[in-house]
Structures are given as structure tokens and as C-alpha cells.
């Protein structure tokens, strides 16, 4: 079971889009995928149209009030562990109840989980307790990065946090940095992508997620981009990313 955490403390970088569509692309080729929404804003949950009222979510799973399978919403080859705004309160509660080992909360809650080829965790846009739980659970990070100047500052912060977590004794690898919202028409996009590859070499995915309207439109129809526009640019890019992730092992 390959676990991947999609993280970037900056909002609007393409975390949820990447988690949903990478998951969809992997499930399209027959892999069993679990998507974990670890964001209290529940963007992933909403973008796939998962209804959570009256049902347990990841918040109850983290506090061990529910088993993960009780909270699952299943699609063909794709299962969602949804989130809800309650998760914000749950985060505080976990910090209060488990001050010394809260980073292990998700790992503990998901221990013994079987039956999936991939588990993809979507983190909130912060480097807080929930993101830390997601990082420690998978130990493997996918960092979507806008090909813009300000995004580079955020990347340095994440890398600093990775170093801190590794030094605290948790295994941690950077699966790759994914250039997102790439606009071939702007020289900034081209320069950032070019320099990223020169500087970070094999830590940058060969796949680039190009700017595409269909990526923004698909969640409005409660669909992933592969179902919404199967022949579109977005679907093409995420299929390429799925192949690259598979090659990575």
C-alpha cells in the first residue's frame, strides 16, 4: 500500500485538485485508491459530491469514535474518507488530549487498514497539527507548486519542516514537486519550471499540470476531471502524473 500526502501550506496551489485527479487517474487504470480529506474546509469531500450529514467523517476516525470503514464513501475503485468543518475542533481536542504524540493520530487510527493500492491524503493549507499528522502517516510527500515567485517561499518552509520531522525520527521522503497552473505563455512560468528542474533535478516531476478551465469546472459538477472532460488537457496531465507515480514504485 503506497501512501502519499499532498501538501503545501499556501492555499490555491492545486492540492485538492491533485489529490482528486491523481486518485481518479490511478483508479482509472484499476488501482484501488483511498482519498483522505484532512482539511476542515472539506474541499475534496465537496468536489466529489460526498454527503456527510449524520455520518462519521475523518474527525471521528481520528478520535477513535468510528472505524475508518464506517466513514468510507465508495465509488468504483475510488473510496473517500470525507471531512467536515467539525475537524477544526477535533484538531484542538487531539492537541489537548495527546500533546506529546498528536502527530501519530492518523497513523494510529489507520493502523491495520488493508485493501488499497494507494492512499492519498489531502492536507489543509497550513503547516499545523493536521498537516503534521498527514505527513507522519505517509512519510511521502507530493508538493504541488504554482509556477510563480511567491510559491517558492512556501516551498522553502515545507522543506524546512520536512527536515525538522526527519530529525525528530520520522521517516520522510519527498516523492516530488509538481509544477501546477503552468501557463506556457508567461515567461515567469517557463523560467520557474526551468530553474526548478535545474535546481532540484529528480525531485521535480516530469509531468507539468497546465492551466486549464476544466480543472476548475469539474468540482462544480461534483466530478473529477477524468470523468468531466476525459479528452481534455487536465485529464491528460493527471494520467501522465499517475504513470509517473506508478513508475516511482
Amino acid at each position, binding site marked *: 500500500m503506497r501512501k502519499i500526502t499532498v501538501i503545501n501550506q499556501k492555499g490555491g496551489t492545486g492540492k485538492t485538485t491533485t489529490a482528486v485527479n491523481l486518485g481518479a487517474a490511478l483508479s482509472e487504470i484499476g488501482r484501488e485508491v483511498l482519498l483522505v480529506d484532512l482539511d476542515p474546509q472539506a474541499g475534496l469531500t465537496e468536489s466529489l459530491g460526498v454527503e456527510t450529514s449524520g455520518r462519521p467523517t475523518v474527525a471521528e476516525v481520528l478520535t477513535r469514535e468510528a472505524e475508518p470503514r464506517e466513514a468510507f464513501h465508495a465509488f468504483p475503485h475510488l473510496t473517500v474518507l470525507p471531512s467536515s468543518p467539525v475537524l477544526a475542533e477535533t484538531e484542538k481536542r487531539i492537541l489537548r488530549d495527546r500533546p506529546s504524540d498528536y502527530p501519530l493520530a492518523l497513523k494510529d487510527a489507520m493502523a491495520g487498514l488493508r485493501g488499497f493500492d494507494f492512499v492519498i491524503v489531502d492536507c489543509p493549507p497550513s503547516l499545523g497539527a493536521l498537516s503534521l499528522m498527514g505527513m507522519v502517516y505517509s512519510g511521502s510527500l507530493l508538493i504541488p507548486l504554482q509556477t510563480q515567485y511567491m510559491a517558492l517561499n512556501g*516551498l522553502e518552509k515545507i522543506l524546512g519542516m520536512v527536515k525538522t520531522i526527519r530529525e525528530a525520527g520520522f521517516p520522510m521522503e519527498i516523492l516530488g514537486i509538481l509544477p501546477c497552473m503552468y501557463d506556457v505563455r508567461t515567461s515567469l512560468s517557463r*523560467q520557474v519550471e526551468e530553474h526548478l528542474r535545474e535546481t*532540484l533535478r529528480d*525531485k521535480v516531476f516530469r509531468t507539468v499540470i497546465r492551466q486549464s478551465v476544466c480543472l476548475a469546472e469539474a468540482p462544480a459538477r461534483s466530478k473529477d476531471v477524468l470523468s468531466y472532460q476525459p479528452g481534455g488537457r487536465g485529464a491528460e496531465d493527471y494520467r501522465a502524473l499517475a504513470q509517473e507515480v506508478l513508475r516511482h514504485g
Partner: protein
Amino acid sequence: MGKKTLVPEEKWEGLRHAMEEAAGTRKTSKTPGLLPAAEGEAAGPERGKKRGAMEESKKERNGEKKKKEKKQKKKEKKKKKGKKGKGKKKKGKG
């Protein structure tokens, strides 16, 4: 016309360092751009310590000097007194 650089080179250098540290390929966490002190060349804090030590030794040396001077004065006084004493003892023995 040459290509306009939109992101400064230092930014990329900082990222390279951060990635090396995150990946564990760089052991130290020194500030980018600060080179380690060359062998045999004293680093800042040590230099400070030495300076402090020098000051202390100066004080010690000054103190020793004063003590030595005092001791010499005492010896001189004793010699003067001792000569008198020794003479008296010799007289007593014979």
C-alpha cells in the same frame, strides 16, 4: 536582447540548500552563503574567548607581579633581620 531573469539566483541557491537538508544529503544547517572557517583560522567566538583569556592572564600576571614585589620586599626585610639573628646565634654557640 538577453533573457530577463525574473527570479534572483539567491532564491534558487536557498531552495537547493533547503532540499539538501530536507533530503538528508546535507548534515549541517548553516546559513546559506556562510562558508566554514578555514583550518587553522580561529572562528569568531573562539577569538572572543581567547581575548577574554588574555585579559584574565594579564590580570593574573599583574597580580603575580604585585605579589612577587611584596615577597621580595619581605625577603629583603627578613634578610636584614636574619643577619642580625644569625650573628647572635653564632656568638651563643662558641
